[in-house]
């Protein structure tokens, strides 16, 4: 049985596994890091092990702004993943690889070189992420509108940027794709900048800040109101929470001081009665606690507090202009992508918006997007935003499906073809 390696090569995370399976074998950062204490660069999965102290670690990534710039580093990361995590021999397997939309020809050439000359893969298929997400969603709901109409609008909020891409009959309509140059990395860095200026200097702590962002950030449904709440002192402030930094001795990873405190804001989005109950309960527990000693920030204990940063950071996805980036927000990005398509396709696309990518994991992301989008969309069109159950893996699962389909072998370019025709001619087969 010939096996297909499915590799969703994101700028932030590599998702790698064997085609046909439900979940990838490895989900590891696409980077190497070097902690202060050592001279060795740690590869991908080694960065995730719990006993590594990543304080002030230097990071190197093969990607810059979402595109591959360092093929050597990428190749060494891949070889690490193939031999240690997947345990495959490349010369006996095919590869399904994702690449960013509008990949530059020079980058495609160097990718092909890695695949066929460094690793000797038998065959290669290159796909873009929107079509794979579409494929996966269409197969999940065979009678849903996505698969009946054979079209969807995939919004991929990734690590380096966000793409809104119309997909029609499993092909991405590349003339309709719109890109917003904001992604998870920029948000993490923005958060880092805010925290470093306001409380503790964490400019070196990439991994820590990612963790803070993932655990604490959420999308606000009413920014003006939430800013007012964030200003309140003491118990009325539903957003304040404290994050404890690693001390390097007892714990090497940071953590939330009080996970309950971090969830308090959720009461805003439930009904009023529940809110009052929760607040009352909160007051009682607080009285029990020896007067707000726990909520004051203790500078000797290396922790920092967050209030409005928690929602102002993801907010930038919706209004990049606030950050000084002269680009339209996510909602407008979607509208522009859709309106550049054929007018018969537009109502269908508005009804089948699919959110994918790690940045969409912020709580209330989809609701906020719908709130922003509705005023921009004509009344006569229905609007439906679908979230994926696991947005980080959506692309990979689509790839896994494609790899297990019977036609897959016919779609690939083989090593022999590559050797005869070269990279550029082979690439024409993939229509991008």
């Amino acid at each position: 049985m010939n096996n297909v390696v499915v590799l969703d090569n994101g700028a932030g995370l590599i998702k790698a596994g064997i085609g046909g399976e439900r979940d990838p074998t490895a989900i590891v950062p696409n980077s190497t890091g070097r902690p202060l204490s050592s001279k060795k660069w740690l590869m991908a999965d080694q960065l995730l092990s719990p006993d590594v102290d990543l304080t002030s670690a230097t990071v190197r990534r093969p990607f810059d702004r979402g595109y591959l710039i360092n093929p050597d580093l990428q190749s060494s990361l891949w070889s690490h993943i193939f031999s240690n995590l997947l345990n495959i021999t490349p010369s006996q397997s095919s590869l399904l690889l994702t690449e960013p939309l509008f990949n530059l020809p020079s980058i495609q050439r160097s990718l092909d070189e890695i695949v066929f000359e460094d690793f000797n893969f038998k065959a290669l298929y290159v796909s873009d992420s929107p079509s794979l997400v579409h494929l996966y969603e269409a197969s999940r709901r065979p009678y849903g509108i996505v698969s009946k109409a054979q079209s969807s609008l995939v919004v991929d909020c990734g690590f380096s940027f966000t793409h809104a891409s119309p997909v029609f009959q499993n092909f991405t309509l590349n003339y309709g794709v719109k890109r917003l140059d904001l992604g998870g990395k920029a948000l993490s860095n923005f958060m880092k900048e805010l925290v470093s200026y306001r409380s503790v200097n964490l400019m070196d702590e990439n991994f820590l800040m990612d963790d803070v962002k993932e655990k604490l950030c959420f999308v606000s449904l009413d920014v003006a109101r939430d800013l007012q709440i964030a200003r309140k002192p003491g118990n009325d402030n539903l957003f304040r929470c404290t994050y404890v930094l690693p001390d390097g001795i007892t714990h090497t990873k940071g953590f939330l001081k009080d996970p309950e405190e971090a969830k308090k804001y959720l009461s805003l989005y439930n009904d009023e009665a529940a809110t009052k109950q929760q607040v009352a309960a909160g007051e009682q527990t607080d009285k029990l606690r020896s007067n707000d000693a726990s909520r004051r920030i203790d500078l000797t204990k290396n922790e920092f507090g967050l209030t409005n940063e928690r929602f102002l950071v993801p907010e930038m996805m919706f209004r990049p202009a606030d950050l000084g980036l002269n680009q339209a927000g996510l909602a407008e990005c979607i509208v522009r992508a859709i309106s550049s398509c054929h007018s018969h396709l537009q109502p269908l696309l508005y009804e089948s918006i699919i959110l994918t990518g790690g940045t969409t994991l912020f709580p209330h992301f989809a609701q906020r997007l719908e709130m922003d989008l509705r005023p921009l969309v004509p009344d006569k069109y229905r609007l439906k935003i679908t979230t994926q159950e696991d947005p980080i893996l959506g692309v990979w699962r689509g790839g896994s499906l494609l790899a297990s389909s019977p036609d897959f072998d016919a779609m690939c370019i083989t090593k022999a073809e590559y050797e005869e025709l070269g990279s550029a001619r082979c690439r024409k087969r993939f229509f991008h």
Partner: protein
Amino acid sequence: MDEELSNSARRMSMRTRKVAPKMAAALASSDNRTQAMLARLDALESDNAVVEQQPLDDDDEASLDDEDQVFHKKYPKGTKRKTRQAKALEHKRAPKTFLELLHEANLESLPPHVPTYLRAAVGPPSSISRRHFCTVCGFSANYTCVQCGMRFCSIKCQTIHKDTRCLKFVA
């Protein structure tokens, strides 16, 4: 600080002349401010914050040498000869950035109907209104710093801003 500014045009001593171009540039601002803005957006895409701080220090030294330059060259004196080996190492160490690759790809030369990386960008927002958040505390900011154009919301934040961050981006 303000006094120095207003007098800087008239005074002729060496010391003020050293300061003047910097300050003038900071005041003339609009261009400089956009530069600072772009630098900041650039920083948001960087991996390690440490890497950027290194050249900043170099720049400060360079600015003492040639007074007239407002924008400092990154490497003021590239006079040291590099051996072939060093060059090869340097080439290995620094892969091209994406912007360099983009420039090399020469996408502008393609006919206008071909969708490319450049044409896929969303473009500017339809409404130019922009919310301003205080750079110190994050709440909505009604005031602008006269010197550097950053925002703050209250006198309290203004003092903090002046003490810590003001002009750092611009000067």
